[in-house]
Every structure is written in structure tokens, then in C-alpha cells.
């Protein structure tokens, strides 16, 4: 017993023996894709493999964690000055800006990326003070997925084009024991994005939340109240799953995939629903997407798209091989769109060519973005401080839990914006 104890202690204190360095250089990467065998994680692994082959003597070591732990760790690394050479990060305005200001991120050479097919405005979102700080990896926009078969079974022959039509289909689905629509209520951001969408639909003018954050207008203005009322009405009408506010992303997605819900309110990154083997063949053949409906008397059109560029890959300023890191990014930018589209894993921030093997839902996604007349840019909750995001999410939760009225909601939002503006 004593001997085993001693052995265990000794083992514990032994430093681990790492593979001796035949490699010249090791690139340390960080991202939020722990699953390296499926979808996006698998694509990055493939790209890494190809890069290593093209640059012999390079080793790539990746640290991946889920979102929250990942963000935390990056912040700790930044403070301890031990950031990975390349890492995935989020939008400039709220999260990346402090990193740039703190000198943690290295600027990139914009010219190297200009010819790589980035969609209009993609590179601009990561440009700060005239310099490019990261490459955006995906084009994300807000859309409604639906199950064609469930629509047909409920006797609905066309997708709702207005909110009133959306309300009209609710009883038809409920009569069949089907949830009309699911979304992730627990995390609040989907509902916050929907709020922004409603503001645009009502006002016909984009960028109003940003103006409110810049304090040119106030969140207590009428248009926001109307949007809040519309959002709360969506919840009150029984459109969503009953425990919306504790229902998380996985639950919402699975309910839709199992054919228990007719629609799924989410972003374009879910185009992979059409190829997800964990759902039935019937589901995959019947999933499609349509544009968010218009509001009666609203000035916005159906082609005003809540769209933004998601996720960046950035280079740490303290990396010892900045040149190599930049080469990696160029390589990534060249390979990612093709691989991502081939695997239907994500909608890249670069142009993709439609393929005959594309699923109906993928085709709809491409069609929707092609037909869009205007895009919103980053949603309001990510346009300001992290504190604002938290206040926004809490207020949304209270509004959708019917704990506060739309009028109180906009007051809270405005107070939060005021506080954020002072910083």
C-alpha cells in the first residue's frame, strides 16, 4: 500500500516527456472547436494537415475548448502574455477591440487577402484604425428553417411571408401536436437578434440599434417599443416550445431534427441540417429555409437581412513566428471556402460556387443571401461592451418570460446603453 502510494506520487511529479523536436517550428493554435472529427473541427484538421505537408518541419498544436472556457482561457493567456500564435476570436467591436488596444493582436497585410473572394464588407468588419486585424471565417445571417413535410401534413401550402401568416399557422401545427417553432431561449442572443430584425422590419431603416448605442436616438423611441411588443407577442402567442426560456440550443435543434417542431429560428450556419446523419433521411430530404417574415405596416422588406461576419482568426502580437502565422492564414483563406461548402459545414465569408450535390436547404441559403438587398452588420448586443451584452440578454430574458412590459424593457435597454456609452 505504501509502495503504490509512493509510486503514484513519483509518477505524478515526473515531467512528461515530449516528442523531441525534429520540427523546426511549432505553431500553437487556439479555437472553440473541440470536436476534431466532425464538421468544422474536421475541416481545420484537414487544412492543418495540408499546411504541414506544404511546410515540412512545422508542427501545429491546437488547444480547443467550448466557447465559455475558451474565452476565459484566452483572456488569462493574454494577461499572462502566453497567447497562442493563432487563435479564433470574435467581433472587433465588443471583444476584439480590447485585445487590439492592449497590443495583443498583430495587424495583417490586407493586400494578401483582397483577391481571395471575400464578400463585400467582410474584411472591413475586422479593420480597425485602418489596419486589418483578423480574417472573418463565416457569413452568418438570420433565417427560419422549416420542415416541408410537416407543413404539407398540416395543410399549409406556402411559407409565411408576414407575421400574421405566421400566427395563422400556429393552431394548425398545434392541432397535430407539433411545436410550431423552436429556438434557443436559454441563451437569449437568438431572441436579441430577432429583436433587431423586428426593429428593422418595422422601421425600414437599418442601423437603428447602433444609433441608439451611439446615443443619437434612444431605445425608448417608439419603434423599439413596437419591436419589443412584437417580440413578446411572438412568445405569448404560443409560437415557441413551452419551456422556451430554459430550452437550450441542443434541445431546440434536436426537437426540430426529430420532426417534433415545424420551424427552427436560427442562423445560416445550420445549413448542415441537410446533411446531419444523426437525423432521419426523411428529415434531411425535407428541411429547407425561408426568409424572416415582414411585419404588417412595417417599412422593411423581406430582403433586409440580419447578416454579419462571424468569428475571426487572429495572430498574436507576441508570436515568435508571425510570418509563418500569416502564411497559415492565407492558406486557410484559400482552402476553407471550398472545404466548408463541400462538407456543408458552414457558409464562408468568401464566395462559394453552388454545386449540383448541394442540398435544398444549402441552395436556399445561397439564394437568400444572393437576393438580399441590404445587410445589417453585427447585431446590437455585440456592438458595445460585454456589460451591455449581459444587460441586453437579461432584459430580453425578462421580456420573453413576460416578467416586464415592452415599455420597461426599452427603458432598461436605454439605461444599459447610457451606461455603456459612458465608458
Amino acid at each position: 500500500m505504501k509502495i503504490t502510494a509512493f509510486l503514484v506520487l513519483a509518477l505524478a511529479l515526473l515531467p512528461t516527456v515530449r516528442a523531441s523536436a525534429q520540427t523546426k517550428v511549432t505553431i500553437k493554435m487556439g479555437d472553440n472547436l473541440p470536436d476534431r472529427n466532425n464538421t468544422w473541427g474536421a475541416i481545420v484538421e484537414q487544412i492543418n494537415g495540408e499546411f504541414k505537408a506544404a511546410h515540412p518541419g512545422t508542427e501545429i498544436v491546437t488547444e480547443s475548448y467550448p466557447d465559455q472556457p475558451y474565452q476565459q482561457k484566452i483572456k488569462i493567456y493574454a494577461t499572462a502574455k502566453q497567447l497562442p500564435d493563432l487563435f479564433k476570436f470574435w467581433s472587433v467591436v465588443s471583444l476584439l477591440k480590447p485585445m487590439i488596444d492592449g497590443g495583443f493582436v498583430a495587424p495583417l497585410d490586407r493586400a494578401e487577402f483582397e483577391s481571395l473572394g471575400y464578400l463585400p464588407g467582410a474584411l472591413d468588419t475586422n479593420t480597425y484604425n485602418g489596419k486589418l486585424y483578423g480574417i472573418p471565417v463565416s457569413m452568418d445571417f438570420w433565417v427560419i428553417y422549416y420542415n416541408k413535410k410537416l407543413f404539407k401534413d398540416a395543410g399549409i401550402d406556402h411559407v409565411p411571408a408576414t407575421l400574421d401568416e405566421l400566427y395563422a399557422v400556429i393552431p394548425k401545427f398545434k392541432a397535430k401536436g407539433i411545436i410550431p417553432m423552436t429556438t434557443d431561449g436559454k441563451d437569449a442572443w437568438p431572441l436579441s437578434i430577432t429583436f433587431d430584425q423586428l426593429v428593422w422590419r418595422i422601421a425600414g431603416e437599418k442601423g437603428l440599434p447602433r444609433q441608439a448605442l451611439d446615443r443619437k436616438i434612444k431605445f425608448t423611441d417608439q419603434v423599439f417599443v413596437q419591436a419589443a411588443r412584437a417580440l413578446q407577442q411572438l412568445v405569448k402567442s404560443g409560437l415557441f416550445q413551452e419551456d422556451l426560456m430554459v430550452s437550450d440550443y441542443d434541445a431546440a435543434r434536436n426537437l426540430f431534427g426529430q420532426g417534433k417542431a415545424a420551424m427552427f429560428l436560427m442562423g445560416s450556419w445550420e445549413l448542415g441540417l441537410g446533411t446531419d446523419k444523426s437525423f432521419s433521411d426523411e428529415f434531411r430530404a425535407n428541411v429547407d429555409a425561408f426568409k424572416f417574415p415582414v411585419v404588417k405596416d412595417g417599412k422593411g422588406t423581406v430582403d433586409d437581412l440580419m447578416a454579419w461576419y462571424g468569428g475571426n482568426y487572429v495572430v498574436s502580437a507576441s508570436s515568435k513566428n508571425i510570418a509563418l502565422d500569416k502564411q497559415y492564414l492565407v492558406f486557410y483563406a484559400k482552402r476553407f471556402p471550398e472545404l466548408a461548402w463541400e462538407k456543408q459545414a458552414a457558409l464562408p465569408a468568401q464566395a462559394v460556387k453552388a454545386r449540383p450535390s448541394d442540398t435544398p436547404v444549402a441552395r436556399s441559403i445561397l439564394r437568400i443571401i444572393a437576393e438580399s438587398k441590404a445587410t445589417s452588420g453585427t447585431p446590437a448586443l455585440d456592438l458595445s461592451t460585454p456589460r451591455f451584452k449581459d444587460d441586453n440578454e437579461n432584459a430580453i430574458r425578462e421580456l420573453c418570460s413576460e416578467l416586464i412590459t415592452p415599455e420597461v424593457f426599452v427603458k432598461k435597454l436605454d439605461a444599459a446603453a447610457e451606461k455603456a456609452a459612458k465608458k
Partner: protein
Amino acid sequence: MTDRGTPRATGRRAGLAVLHVGLVLFALMQLFPLLWVFLCSLQKSGDLFGNDLIRVPTDPQWSNYARAWTNGQFVRYGLNSFIVVTASTAVSTVLSFCMGYAIARMRWRGKRLALGAILMGMVVPIHATLLPNFLWYSYFGLIDTRLGLIIPYVAFTLSFNTLVYAGHFRNLPAALEEAALLDGASWPRILWSVVAPLATPATVTVAVMTFLTNWNEFIMANTYLASDDLRTLPFSIIRFQGQYRSDYAAQFACMVLVAVPALALYLYFSKHIMAGATAGAVKE
């Protein structure tokens, strides 16, 4: 406590029956989560989180376990977990045994201060220590090492364990120890041969508590470790999480695999709680 066949006695027997039924029902309720996780682990990812709480899978996906074992790096992470958690449990138990004894039995200068430190140790929230410790450990080169994880694991369980031991010792009559002292035994001898056996219930409690707390621990492992070859078991579960979509079924399979050693350990140790009982009797 008189006659047997009277209504009161039958009432008592009926009451006993009800009690037994109650105990069994309660046992079933406690076993339910394990059953649930196991059944979930045999589903397909897409079938989870749906209507039915329990669904006996018509098509058990044993492949989930295969994936959990290989993609989840079960062997490597399991070994790391085993080393780190066992070491920290052993160290924490021994140290808190000494500290608990010192607090309960001895009187010395600075005792108040030590008690204060122990109290602090119990109430400090883990999250507040992550960043400072990371910077501090970095300085000593402890980041991304096993030792760098063992130290906080010991630190955070030390206070509780000391408290448990101290409470236990306070209740133990000092007669046996005094007898041994009179016999001329040295302190280490006394501690080892006399006190330790008496403390067995407490030791089991402490060891089990420490082991289980650290076996499932994630946030500190996440902060203080970086390399894949050092990661512990909770990481095997996150290997199946993507940014938006995850392999849920494999995650459940992982959870079952992670829970098995912990359960086995508890099964093994729980029989030792009895051992202290007889030793606790002191013949006057």
C-alpha cells in the same frame, strides 16, 4: 416492548413494511439518473432531448462507446486523471489528518492564525483564484504540469478535510493515546498505530470526498493545463462538442465511462466505514 400478537405489534410490523418499501423506492429514485445516462448513451445523437425521458433504445448504439473510448482519448486522459486525483487525494488526506489532529488535540501558539487560514481556505471561491494562480504558477513553471494541478486540488480540499478530521478527533476520547504515551511510544508511532485506525470512518469520508470532487473537476484543469497529453477525464467529454453541433450520444457514453471508476471506488471504500466502528469502543 412487551407482547407480540397485539394490534400495536401488527401496526408496527405494517409500519416496518412501509418503511422497507419506502427505502426501496428511494433507492430506485437514486439509481434513476445512472439508468437515464446509460440509456441516453445508447441512443443516436439526433434522438436525444426529445419527448421521452426514458426510451429503451430499439437500436442500441454501442458504437457510441467505441467512439468515446478512442476519440475521447479515454485511456490517456483516464491515466492522467488517475495519477493526479489519486496523488492529490493521498496528499490531502495525510496533510489534513495531521492538521486535524493538531487542531483537535494540541495547543500551540499561532493556532488562531492557522484556524483563520483554514477558514479562508474553505470560503475562497475557485473562480477568483484562477487568474492570480495562473500568473503565480507561471512564475514557478508549474503551468501545464501535473504538479501544477495537484497543488490546487490539494489546497481546495484541505480545509474541508481538516475540519472533518478535527471534528472526529474532538469526539474521540484520548484514553488510548494516553495509554500509548505512558507505554513510551513515540508520536509518529502513536499517530500511525493508534489514532489512524480510530480515524478510519473519517479517513474514508475524506478520501472519498476528495477523490470524487477532483475526479469530475474541470475548470481548474482547463486553466492550468494546456497539452493534450496531460489532460484529465472531463476533457474527454468536450472532445465531442463542436461550436454549434455536438455528438451528444458520445458525450453521454463518456459520462458513463467517467462515472464507472468513481462508483467502483466508492463501492470499495464504503465497506471500510464499518471497520472503525468496533475500534471506537473504549473499554472503561
